[in-house]
């Protein structure tokens, strides 16, 4: 038996049970995701898990997932952002003007667009953090204002086409630099993709191992070894299954690489940086955070700046995917992003939530969308199901909290 616990845990007989129930509540979302995937895989006779369809799900939902990463931080901080859909449209238009009309090189244009998004976030963050207007009102105003500016910028018509590089950021795939390898009955698959997947899994396992070793070194409790191994094997199997399917199709979508980097970076930021911790403490108890010396206004401001920049990134990707910046781009994206955050375990009062949870919440909605359209369900039924899933997810969260 390799179970190791801190020496202190012995003094507290209730610890293991409460730990388990906490785990259950946090992992509920992943279990639900797995069940939904299995359900639709079954209903679609496996079409859901076909290589091309997996690729589609990722590419089609990438911009909402990027928005969800920003939105979860906003919600953890106890706020909301209703303007991100309009910001997606406006930044897409800005990017179109910079590349198509002005002919700027694509990296410069993208950088300027991200900056514009950050400025949009800063403008709203100022009113929220320093002027004290509720975020709901400020971003509701922003939703109208930025949509209006989009229409002004575009002159009520779409602008396109975008440079190839921006299009491939949204739609493109990594190249087959090392050729294919045979995977027996599965046929040929891209070697680079497979290697990237293996590298990712190996990195994950290594970092988990080092974290575990460090925790043990400090005498902290850790998962028992079998559970620890099971977790890593589980993650490895899922990641490799997705990667293999993608490698069989057209390699890794660039936007998946981008998403993976964002998810990792923002998870780390939320959990381990002073800034991230301050977001949680503000959302958890604003007064206590203030009296603990947290620069509440500055943190709130930067959370919105970050949201603006991520919305701009989503704007570029969405415009690139359609190869056109249109006046109706991003409509209702804010609702998808907010729903993703709440399905992913965020609390309305703030202070609770995880980046990975929000991404999972976004994927749950993506899979429901995709799966239901595969079985030919009309769009009103998709909407109905998504609404009920959102309600059920939050009801489950409230219920487990009340029981605790």
């Amino acid at each position, binding site marked *: 038996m390799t179970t190791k616990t801190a020496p202190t845990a012995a003094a507290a007989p209730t610890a293991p049970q*409460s730990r388990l129930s906490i785990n259950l509540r946090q992992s509920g979302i992943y279990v639900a995701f797995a069940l939904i995937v299995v359900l639709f895989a079954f209903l679609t006779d496996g079409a859901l898990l076909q290589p091309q369809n997996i690729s589609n799900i990722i590419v089609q939902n990438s911009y909402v997932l990027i928005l969800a990463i920003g939105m979860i931080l906003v919600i953890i901080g106890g706020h909301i952002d209703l303007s991100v859909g309009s910001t997606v449209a406006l930044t897409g238009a800005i990017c179109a003007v910079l590349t198509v009309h002005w002919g700027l090189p694509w990296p410069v244009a993208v950088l300027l667009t991200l900056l514009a998004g950050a400025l949009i976030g800063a403008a709203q963050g100022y009113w929220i953090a320093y002027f004290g207007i509720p975020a709901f009102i400020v971003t509701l105003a922003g939703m109208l204002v930025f949509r209006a500016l989009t229409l002004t910028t575009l002159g009520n018509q779409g602008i396109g086409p975008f440079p190839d590089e921006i299009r491939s950021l949204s739609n493109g795939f990594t190249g087959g630099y090392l050729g294919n390898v045979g995977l027996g009955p599965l046929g040929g698959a891209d070697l680079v993709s497979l290697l990237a997947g293996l590298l990712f899994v190996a990195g994950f396992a290594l970092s988990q191992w080092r974290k575990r070793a460090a925790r043990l070194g*400090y005498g902290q*409790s850790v998962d028992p070894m079998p559970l620890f191994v099971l977790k890593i094997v589980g993650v490895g199997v899922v990641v490799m299954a997705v990667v293999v399917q993608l490698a069989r199709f057209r390699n890794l979508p660039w936007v998946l690489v981008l998403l993976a980097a964002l998810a990792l970076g923002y998870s780390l930021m939320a959990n381990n*940086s*002073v800034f991230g*911790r301050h977001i949680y403490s503000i959302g*958890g*108890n604003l007064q*206590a955070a203030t009296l603990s010396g947290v620069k509440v206004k500055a943190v709130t401001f930067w959370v919105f700046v970050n949201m603006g920049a991520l919305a701009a990134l989503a704007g570029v990707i969405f415009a690139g995917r359609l190869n056109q910046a249109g006046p109706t781009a991003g409509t209702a994206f804010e609702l998808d992003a907010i729903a993703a955050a709440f399905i992913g375990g965020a609390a309305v009062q703030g*202070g609770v939530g995880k980046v990975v949870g929000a991404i999972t919440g976004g994927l749950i909605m993506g899979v429901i969308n995709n799966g239901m359209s595969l079985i030919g369900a009309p769009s009103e039924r998709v909407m109905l199901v998504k609404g009920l899933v959102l309600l059920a997810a939050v009801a489950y969260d409230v219920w487990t909290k009340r029981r605790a």
Partner: protein
Amino acid sequence: MSDEILVMRGITKRFAGVTALHDVTLSVRRGEIHAICGENGAGKSTLMKVLSGVHPHGTYEGEIVFDGEPCAFHGVRDSERRGIVIIHQELALCGQLSVAENLFLGNERARRGFIDWNRTNHEAQALLDRVGLRENPTTPVNDLGVGKQQLVEIAKALSKEVKLLILDEPTAALNDDDSQHLLDLLDGLRDEGITSVIISHKLNEVTRIADTVTVLRDGKTIETLPAQGLSEERIIAGMVGRDLEHRFPPRTPDIGDEVLRIEDWTVHSPAQPDRVLVDRATLTLRRGEIVGLAGLMGAGRTELAMSVFGRSYGVGISGRVVKDGQEIDTRTVQAAIRNGLAYVSEDRKRYGLNLIEGVQRNVSAAALGKLAKNGWVNENEEFSVAERFRRSMGIRTPSVSTQVGTLSGGNQQKVVLAKWMFTDPDVLILDEPTRGIDVGAKYEIYSIINDLAAQGRAVLVISSELPELLGLCDRIYALSEGRITGEVDRAEATQERLMQYMTRGQNS
């Protein structure tokens, strides 16, 4: 009909393990003004909440007989129907609504579901005349001062055909003129046959207006005295007359040089910028010293502490904070922490803790920078720190990742103390450090405070419990109506003496 309008017999009320009232008896004669006196926490407000049905029948033991009939109130509406109206310290008015709307809130003058505005305003005017408030009934309540709002509350009580009016600290927030008017009004209502029960800390007012005084202490009735010829000293003796048991850990003070001086500190109310809450207060703290700050509710203790700590409360703040001979910047919480100050709030759930996070993250919250390199927190170091405080302070928790909200009050308080100890302050201001904590945990908190002083830190303890200050402190300041009215060394400090300073008004 009997001479007694109200008899409360054998009232016992318990809150989760704490007995707030123990076999309390109160009898009020018809048409008198009956004052209830006692220290903070003696059970005065709880008793009145039992009477008015805020604590419904069944949650307490004992019987209430009002107007000759036994009562079993299930809510405030029940007691109001019988003619008992309570006016709380925090006024329950809707600021945006007009005076008339407030007067008849929940009791609207309506015809078939629609408000009869003529009748509403007409009757409101009559009520305002009765309480001597010359205001238009359509004025929003927010436009009135606190004194006038108090009168609106009384007018509202009169609209319900009140027989017994209960006022909880009616003059605590009022200036002298408004207090005077209110007391005269109560005098006038007595002549109309309305019985009043007032809870008050201002003993000069009590001796002036009351016919009978009942003293509560530690949730028990101590005595009921006729107010005729009663001295303030006599009331104080009843309020404090308990002996100091061995409730305090032993300590040998080792007091060094002055570390902090607050000079001419003045704070104004954020709601009424012309009202002075702290008036030119000056106090000093020395290394290794535990200094007490005594004062009754509304004396300005918390306002003083929070305004010093990063101007977290109040407006129009002036004065100097001098540490080790040099004036320091305390204008923001960050600056105050940087300059070695720490403030532990009286309300740990609202101002002290993030209840949905674990012990570990709460302990690190005020000094996260110490655990971080380039903005990244070392969680393992953080765990060690939390674990160290868990052991050294005896925080009873399943683990340091346990949500703070699930811990007991005493353990929550230890977490807050640990949070501030981790900032390594030179001066700690502890605001009601043992509020809502059981006796055993109090002893542990006292030991922690002693340790802090032994480490050479200066500790300012704000407490409503005089025995606590006497048992803990080397020196005690008394604050009354925002002013330091006295400073007493441990050797000379008695409850009577402190209470005299604490009840000393501006004009006495």
